[in-house]
């Protein structure tokens, strides 16, 4: 079910997510401790390529990582196989990507 390609995709995306997660937590703590309002946060993220890349990368990594993880659970626990399993995996990947990309787009475009 999991071959080397999918295994590596899941491990490498995990590797990407670790520093980004810490970055995200650090920013959250900074924003709350500093008492930033939503408007102030948006004024910093809007038009920022750096924030778009930061959260854009995170969204791509999460979409790949999550889709592979759920694929394993669907196969091993719910016996989903073959084409339906591929459709499920792609659907999870595309849904997460769409939802995440939409959020990143909303907070970073001017």
């Amino acid at each position: 079910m999991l071959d080397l390609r999918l295994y590596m995709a899941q491990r490498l995306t995990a590797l990407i997510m670790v520093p980004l997660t810490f970055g995200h937590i650090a920013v959250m703590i900074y924003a709350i401790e500093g008492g930033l309002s939503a408007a102030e946060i948006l004024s910093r993220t809007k038009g920022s390529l750096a924030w778009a890349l930061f959260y854009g990368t995170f969204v791509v990594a999460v979409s790949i990582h999550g889709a592979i993880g759920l694929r394993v659970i669907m196969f091993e626990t719910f016996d989903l196989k073959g084409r339906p399993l591929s459709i499920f995996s792609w659907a999870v990947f595309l849904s997460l990507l769409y939802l995440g990309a939409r959020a990143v787009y909303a907070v970073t475009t001017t």
Partner: protein
Amino acid sequence: MSAAGEKTKLKNINVSVWRGDSAGGTFQNYAVPAQESQTILDVVAWIQQNQDPTLSYRYACRVGMCGSCAMMVNGQPRWTCRTHVQKVIKKNKLVIAPLRNLPVIKDLATNMDEFFDKWVRAEGVFHPTRTRDDEIEKINPETSKRARANAAIECINCAVCYASCDVVSSNKDYLGPAALNRAWSLVNDVRDGALDQRLDAVSKSGGCHNCHSQHGCVKFCPNELNPTAAIAGLKLETAKTMFRRRR
């Protein structure tokens, strides 16, 4: 006291044995006289010899060498010839069933074809680099590679690890701990010439990357091998190969 009197004083063990075939079956109860230093295989043999000659089971060496007598005992996979009743009995009861994760032929005998086929699929076959005309290669037992090969080499093919593995239960395509442990042993054997072939074989859909590192195989291996570590080694080696080949 007479010999007959001694016999009547013997305590009986309550033994439930799974009887049936690939179509299904049920547990049947037997009372087996308890003996000192009695093994599970002794119990099964006693039932077959004294109570029901139609009971089917598999064994050969009786000394933990051949790996043919493994069964489920009180829900756990065991090599029955080396498992003492006193070690595993609970409330004077034993439940003996065929090995988990393998199709049943009859009663306690399972069909081990898929288990051995997976050894071949994992490239568990030695590919020599020398012929009989060449000089015998000197192997230094002190090298770390040889130590890793040696650590995995004592497998007796009993399928206890295969029966203990939850990934095998949920993924019939998975090669399983024994086949992957064998592959790891050969990956570390400097005399073998099929490294790339083997790493490709364990990287396919049912390969080493499906292991969840639950350590069931490590817990139950009667020879105290560590297939989980062998599989982790394969995961690392295949990942390295992926980067090496892309360069």
